């Protein structure tokens, strides 16, 4: 069964304290992996797409990486405005998207 698991479920960081979020997946026919940010009561906002192992993407304080079994979202020197839930999703050969349950990030000033 296709599965996406995110860890940790929740993470509290001091402002400026770098860390990483993990997304591991067991799927057949992976076509791509996506990271989204979701603020409370809003729809997810697209961050990155990764298609092949070894690929990396960066945007401001965020950097996403992909291996054959997992992806990491690295957050460097986070700010309070980075507080949100970060969702990982994979698209498989049938064009379905499977989302993880997310990591709730809180950055304390």
């Amino acid at each position: 069964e296709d599965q996406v698991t995110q860890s940790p479920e929740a993470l509290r960081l001091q402002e400026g304290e770098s860390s990483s979020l993990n997304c591991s997946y067991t799927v057949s026919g992976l076509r791509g992996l996506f990271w989204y940010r979701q603020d409370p009561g809003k729809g997810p906002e697209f961050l990155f797409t990764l298609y092949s192992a070894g690929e990396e993407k960066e945007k401001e304080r965020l950097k996403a990486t992909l291996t054959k079994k997992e992806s990491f979202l690295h957050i460097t020197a986070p700010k309070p405005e980075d507080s949100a839930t970060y969702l990982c999703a994979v698209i498989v050969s049938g064009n379905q998207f499977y989302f993880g349950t997310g990591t709730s990030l809180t950055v304390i000033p």
Partner: protein
Amino acid sequence: GAGVSQTPSNKVTEKGKYVELRCDPISGHTALYWYRQSLGQGPEFLIYFQGTGAADDSGLPNDRFFAVRPEGSVSTLKIQRTERGDSAMYLCASSPLVSSEQYFGPGTRLTVT
């Protein structure tokens, strides 16, 4: 440019009633997805359209749920005989290609009393 819009933003209905949720995708996007999200969970796939036809409706939980996209743009998710368990945030997303990144609307919060 205009993003994905969904109406209504909130819908409260009584158990057993019929509801329609509307999604206006980004102009030119051929793929449109519907998801359901419960509190503390990730979005759960319901159905996706490529153009006018439902390419995959395997995520619809039962035959009370139905969705259409008659002209390949606006889509409507229809729920008959609503149950309290249908209460959730319903999200719509569109993408320029089926396998590319999705752009989400703000969602419709459905509450069945």
